[in-house]
């Protein structure tokens, strides 16, 4: 189990404990964290599980893959630290991970 902190657009915090191996998207959805729609169910094809990864965690969460890059390209509020949370699989290394959710998923 690892701990993840989701911070909503308005600052509301959600601390969740999740199994390693799950995706960050699954962690949010199964713990009822608002602001993650995940319309495609985790196949990197809708960009509605968009999150911003805290600077200090960018190394541990890995690179944006090409499909993810293409989907993120459709987002109007893409930032340097944007990721699709279905493409981050949680590992022990990510214990304490902090991510924030955008105001809207699009």
């Amino acid at each position: 189990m690892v701990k993840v902190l989701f911070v909503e657009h308005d600052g509301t915090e959600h601390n969740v404990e999740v199994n390693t191996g799950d995706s960050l998207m699954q962690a949010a959805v199964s713990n009822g964290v608002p602001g993650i729609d995940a319309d495609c169910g985790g196949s990197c094809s809708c960009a509605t599980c968009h999150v911003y990864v805290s600077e200090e965690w960018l190394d541990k969460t890995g690179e944006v893959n090409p499909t993810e890059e293409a989907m993120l390209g459709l987002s109007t509020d893409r930032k340097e630290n944007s990721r699709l949370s279905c493409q981050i699989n949680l590992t022990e290394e990510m214990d304490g991970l902090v991510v924030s959710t955008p105001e809207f998923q699009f």
Partner: protein
Amino acid sequence: MSEMATGDVPKKSKWSMVDKDPYAMSIKDIDLSHPGIWQHNQYLPFMERLRNEDPVHYCEDSAVGPYWSIMKYKDIMTVDTSPHLYSSEPTIGIIDSFEEFALPAFISMDPPKHDDQRRTVQGVVAPANLKELEGLIRSRAGVILDSLPINEEFDWVKHVSIELTTQMLATLFDFPFEDRNKLTYWSDVATAIPGNGIVETNEQRWAAIEECLAYFTRLWNERVNAEPGNDLVSMLAHGEATKNMPPMEYLGNIILLIVGGNDTTRNSITGGVLALNENPAEYAKLRADKGVIPNMVSEIIRWQTPLAYMRRTAIQDTELSGKKIKAGDKVVMWYASGNRDEESIDRANEFLIDRPNARQHLSFGFGLHRCMGNRLAEMQLRVIWEEISKRFDFVEVVGEPERIYSSFVKGYSKLPVVLHPLK
């Protein structure tokens, strides 16, 4: 399509499947592309047989030539998310012969051109912009609903669905409000098959399209010389990827945005009323809890599937669920079938407004071409249902709907209703 006399069509073509038993014919002869079964609401058992018995189906001979039908949710997902194998060029419609009339637009482009053009205009339908628009949509919806007759039959399509979506479209284009009915007409013309009520000939169709181009060229010229605004025309005129586009490409994108923002939501507004009438227990759930509306909106969009399919063209030889697809083959993803696939959607053939995971449907497509206006559509439907629920206990369907003669735009030209106000 609103005014077409649907009673006269289809002209009984040799290709029509109307009144045929899908289980009594050879499976290879099933052809979903002919509009007859869609207009006559007979398409479901044809789709069901293909989904169960031959989910990647080759139709060798049809009025639109040979094509593959992709029937299962998962296979559709595969095709939609593999643009390197399945191209959106030259067209996303099933009919190749329309190519000579087809207008270039980003829906029928592959990356990178698609991505650049789409990025230019998507801001206008992004949620942040929609938040600004919601109040306006709500007040316009209220005016429309308050003007309707009570306890008296009228056509819901004409007086509510078309009116609301057309007003919305005029707002997005900053289009002269008094001319807004032109948008509806151009939208209908763009998807019309000559001879079926909207236009009689291709010449007529082109005349209407040229009128549309002339009108929007005038708007472009006005806006390009003004400060950049938040409307779609201004965004295209000032956007890096679009400001030098040739006139026909500009027109193609305008028509894409008109059709995309018009027919689809219009038909989901109508389809929702019909589905709630056909499922009284669901209507009761809505009366008991207005909080179900956002979830219901997703379910209505799944149930209606306002565009029945999207077409791709195979770029190279490939294989899908054991079938060998050749480079150049037409591949049709039947969203209307994938949305009824029991293997991927629990109780897929039931309309359940409180269903879990209602957002996981195919109506918006997936991947790079996923519907750009999906949040706008959801917002419009949510607002209209919230406003309906404040006023009416029951929007009662009192006669048979008239459906559109198309295997692409899945919708209605007429739905007679009577309104019963809240007690």
